[in-house]
């Protein structure tokens, strides 16, 4: 097992890529805190705990600093430490700039970029307090590298996540803290639930592999980075995109 006795937080852990990662992490021996805005996290936690896994749901709005502090505190109170932070929570509610309200722009930046900053900041604070080092995996995207007409705020936030990841790598490598990002292409998750079948087919066609990715395929990349297998991997933005950005 790759995460035996490790304690991990997965923000946005109640659906999509986050949920797939929670399920993979517990199979690999981790104790997992499911941090999510939605109380669906509670039912996932109960289901996993009834199968003898060890998880905790902490309702969390990643844009609220006190919620993030509470998430770390509850984790340490219950499990005594933190080893892995997967700052995954994100939204996709976007439009071309002239049609995008400032309110919507701010909400996306708040969740997808500032939420990652806050999760990382308080995880690092905890790692430093422990003196143990630790691992952070941030949610990047193909839109950390390339864009399309619609994802205006989304691309801006994900571009920020890429450089935030590199910054934190350089700042905390000496403390034994590794910080990387996983950058998926379009994945078949609830983020695409509003998208009709025709649009989904179009999105799939943008990937040379000719399909959307699966949440489990991203979870496996997150697991690789979170585990000691990646002990010399730091500051990278790992693309899992079916060839999207290689075109």
């Amino acid at each position, binding site marked *: 097992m790759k995460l035996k006795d490790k304690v991990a937080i997965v923000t946005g852990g109640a659906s999509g890529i986050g949920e797939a990662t929670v399920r993979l992490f517990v199979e690999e021996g981790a104790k997992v805190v499911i941090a999510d805005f939605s109380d669906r996290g509670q039912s996932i936690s109960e289901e996993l705990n009834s199968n003898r896994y060890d998880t905790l749901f902490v309702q969390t709005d990643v844009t609220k600093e006190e919620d993030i502090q509470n998430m770390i505190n509850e984790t340490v109170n219950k499990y005594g430490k933190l080893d892995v932070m997967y700052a995954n929570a994100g939204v996709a509610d976007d439009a071309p700039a002239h049609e995008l309200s400032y309110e919507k722009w701010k909400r996306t930046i708040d969740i997808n970029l500032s939420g990652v900053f806050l999760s990382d900041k308080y995880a690092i604070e905890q790692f430093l307090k422990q003196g143990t080092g630790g691992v952070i995996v941030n949610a990047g995207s193909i839109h950390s590298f390339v864009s399309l007409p619609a994802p205006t705020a989304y691309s801006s936030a994900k571009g920020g996540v890429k450089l935030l990841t590199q910054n934190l790598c350089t700042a905390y490598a000496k403390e034994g803290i*590794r910080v990387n990002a996983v950058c998926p292409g379009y994945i078949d998750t609830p983020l695409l639930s509003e998208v009709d079948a025709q649009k989904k087919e179009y999105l799939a066609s943008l990937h040379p592999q000719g399909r959307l990715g699966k949440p489990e395929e991203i979870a496996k990349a997150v697991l690789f980075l979170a585990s000691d*297998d*990646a002990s010399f991997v730091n500051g990278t933005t790992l693309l899992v995109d079916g060839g999207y950005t290689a075109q």
Partner: protein
Amino acid sequence: MRLENKVAIITGGGTGIGKETALLFAKEGAKVVITDINEQSGSAAVKDIQAFGGEALFVRHDVSNEDDWKKVADETINTFGKVDVLFNNAGIYIIKPLAEIELAGWNRLMSINVTGVFLGMKHIMPLMAKQNKGSVINASSIAGLTGAAGHVLYGASKGAVRIMTKDAAMEYASAGVRVNSIHPGYIDTGMADYASETTGNSKEQLGKNLFPLGRLGSVNEVAKMVLFLASDESSFSTGAEFVIDGGATAK
């Protein structure tokens, strides 16, 4: 086991990263074809694998020679019936100021580091396409991503590998064959010894100066990344760069 029933070819499998990867692959259930220009070290690596009950075959191989590649393909199919993974690992490293690079030396390095990767993809990927599945891992370097003094020759070769990887990935995506590049920083092998001698810095100094993690990488750390790419765990990654450099290129 993560590579159960898979057949893998590893070039330069007799030493360093190649050998470590061959051992790890075999432990994860793969049948491994170790190729190397050095018969002694390649055969020894095969014996190491057989010693713990793994299956392996040695083929003497100059990666710059097309007939040798045909032989590698034939012997792999004859012995194991198929090929699922190709790790184009063989390469040489030369640090030299631009004005001192002899054309003959340029051509020799290119024939191994670039032509070797081209020939490997040319002769092995069609075999993978027939079964509609396969994974190729090409050894590039951080020298294929960023510039460094004395690295015009080596950097050119690794930059070529980086983009050839993407081109081949695009061409074979619909055939189910994935192609990715790895980009290690200095790993504690003969190449790091050479870099240490050439630059007059100890390996410890190189680790401290170049890598935010403050040390060189180990062959085992690279082997684990190659394993991830060889396995089905990376099924949605193709044409991508997998950097393993202790943070060097994040700076």
